[in-house]
């Protein structure tokens, strides 16, 4: 579906289901240089199991208009505007990587709008390698290759997809190649400059679920330690052998964890 948010057209995948005000709502927020499709399996599942689902393309990504925000707070504010535009008072938020930081920040500043949060591959801080930032600034294809190589675990760089016939590395690369010039750079700046993650986590009182990839190089599990400690009501799952691309590398584990937490 398309929805107008602050004058900009926004695309949200709904699992093919019409909005039902009597159902709970879940918003899925993708990470840097991705779009709604990274949540295809999980969002479709919840859409067909009693929830309204909105797997969004954030501004400047996928089919959504506008420019990619260059701050976590900017994406968080946009999430509030999205809920307003959808006339949803309260929703569960699920975010991956940069999307997880946006969920964290939005929830900390708007606690009444969020019922629970799921953070996949979060990190606070979330440093970005200079070589990656430089390549992204130049819209150099090397930036996509670096992200791809660091996002999949070494084992999964050789495949082993749970989704029959899908070559994870190639699929991730093609998705990034579709992004608009400058979008990745803005995303990475947002990651690099966000310094309020632990503080935000400390102020959140709703239930939180955190999933980490044991072999995540983009957001190493150790970088989430303080954030997790600061959360008041949390569950933490670490996926063995998995990198940063949790939804692609471990779709079953992601769905099973989300089911247990959200249903």
């Amino acid at each position: 579906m398309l929805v107008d948010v602050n004058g900009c057209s926004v695309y949200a995948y709904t699992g093919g289901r019409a909005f039902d005000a009597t159902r709970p709502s879940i918003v899925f927020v993708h990470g840097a240089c991705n779009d709604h499709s990274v949540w295809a399996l999980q969002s479709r599942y919840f859409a067909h199991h009693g929830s309204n689902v909105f797997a969004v393309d954030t501004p400047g990504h996928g089919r959504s208009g506008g420019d990619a925000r260059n701050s976590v707070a900017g994406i968080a504010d946009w999430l509030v505007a999205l809920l307003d535009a959808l006339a949803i008072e309260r929703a569960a938020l699920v975010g991956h990587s940069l999307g997880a930081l946006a969920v964290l920040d939005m929830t900390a500043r708007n606690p009444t709008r969020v019922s629970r949060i799921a953070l996949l591959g979060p990190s606070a801080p979330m440093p970005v390698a200079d070589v990656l930032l430089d390549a992204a600034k130049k819209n150099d294809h090397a930036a996509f290759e670096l992200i791809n190589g660091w996002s999949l675990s070494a084992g999964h760089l050789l495949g082993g997809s749970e989704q029959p016939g899908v070559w994870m590395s190639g699929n991730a690369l093609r998705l990034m190649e579709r992004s608009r010039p400058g979008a990745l750079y803005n995303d990475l700046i947002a990651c690099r400059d966000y310094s309020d993650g632990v503080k935000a986590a400390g102020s959140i009182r709703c239930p939180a679920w955190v999933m980490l990839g044991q072999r995540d190089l983009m957001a190493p599990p150790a970088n989430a330690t303080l954030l997790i400690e600061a959360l008041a009501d949390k569950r933490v799952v670490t996926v063995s052998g998995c990198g940063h691309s949790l939804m692609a590398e471990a779709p079953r584990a992601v769905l099973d964890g989300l089911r247990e937490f959200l249903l």
Partner: protein
Amino acid sequence: MSKPKFAHFDTLTLHAGATPDPATGARATPIYQTASFVFPDSDYAAALFNMERAGHVYSRISNPTCAVLEERISALEGGVGAIAVASGQAALHLAIATLLGAGSHIVASRSLYGGSHNLLDFTLPRFGIETSFVDPRNLDQWRAAIRPETRLLFGETLGNPGLEVLDIPRIAALAHEHDLPLLVDSTFTTPYLMRPFDHGADLVYHSATKFLSGHGVVIGGLLVDGGRFDWRRSGKFPTLSEPYSGFHDMIFTDESTTAAFLLRARREGIRDFGACMAPMTAFQILQGIETLPLRMQRHVENTRKIVAFLAAHDFVASVGYPELEQHPDHQLAQKLLPRGCGAVFSFAIRGTRDQGRKFIESLRIFSHLANVGDAKSLVIHPASTTHFRVSAEKLAAAGITEGTIRLSVGLENVDDLIEDLSRALYAASKTK
């Protein structure tokens, strides 16, 4: 953080898609010889059927052994995914049936494998799909043939049997000008010699029966999606961008930004037409791919020596191999096929039809049969076999004469192969 390490091509031929079997530790890819897979519970089953979970339901739709092969060919081609099917012909049909319906149109190279030509020229019109055939070297003909209802451009990396080198960069650019995809049959070249996606193609398929499996023991096909074509933006492919009542009104371009084509092909084409690959076949093709780089190097080395021998032989009228300077596509081949132009080529003897027959019947190592891409050397007479149903006029247009002989050069000692050819040429030359 050190730069990521991506495996090289020859490492991917051995490892892509395969992990040691989690149940047994088996290093080789197991043959999952099962029709179906047990569901843990009803909710899990429903989720698998409704594309809410990843996994296998029934081996017509997907199978773990076939899935390893699908990942491997995707990795080697640089695509997003693939579907393993019953044959190369099944792959071509699946690509067309996924994208086109009655009233739509294809522009295709006229230099195609005879089976592909049959499908396009004789069979598909019965289902309302027409094809215009064009000279693969003439971009103006490709352009002029495109109609409002055209939905696909199609050619072979190396034409059959004339070895016209498909100018993929220019034809892909033309296709994309018209918001159309380019489908390429890459059977003769394999990803070792050329990766069509690197040059702009959108879909690639193989008869894996040939060089990929490499030993002439299976029939199989592989259809690979490059993941770059924007089916939604094109607006010409309602099978992908509009609700499909055959699958809960699913809009495939909403489900996957990059692999909508593969979703539809699997959820409809394989489901309904059923031309799936058997897991044993997938295993055998995987075994072949493990040695693809080594075999292709040897295939090309042997071919170059045989081409040189034939080109210098008095009883040979012509040799069509793009590495020869006189071949019309010599320069293009140097650009697109720097590792070699494969191991299948044609030549013509200076003689009558009877002398051609005598030549083939005098060979001892080359086997006279209808296949290419075997480890063993093969020979055939296209006019009486693979292109039997093609009219004389169309034969001539495809560069085939009654004296044309096609070789598929194998992995034997090249001196033995040259001796075999030399003796057969001598025998033919002495025949009245």
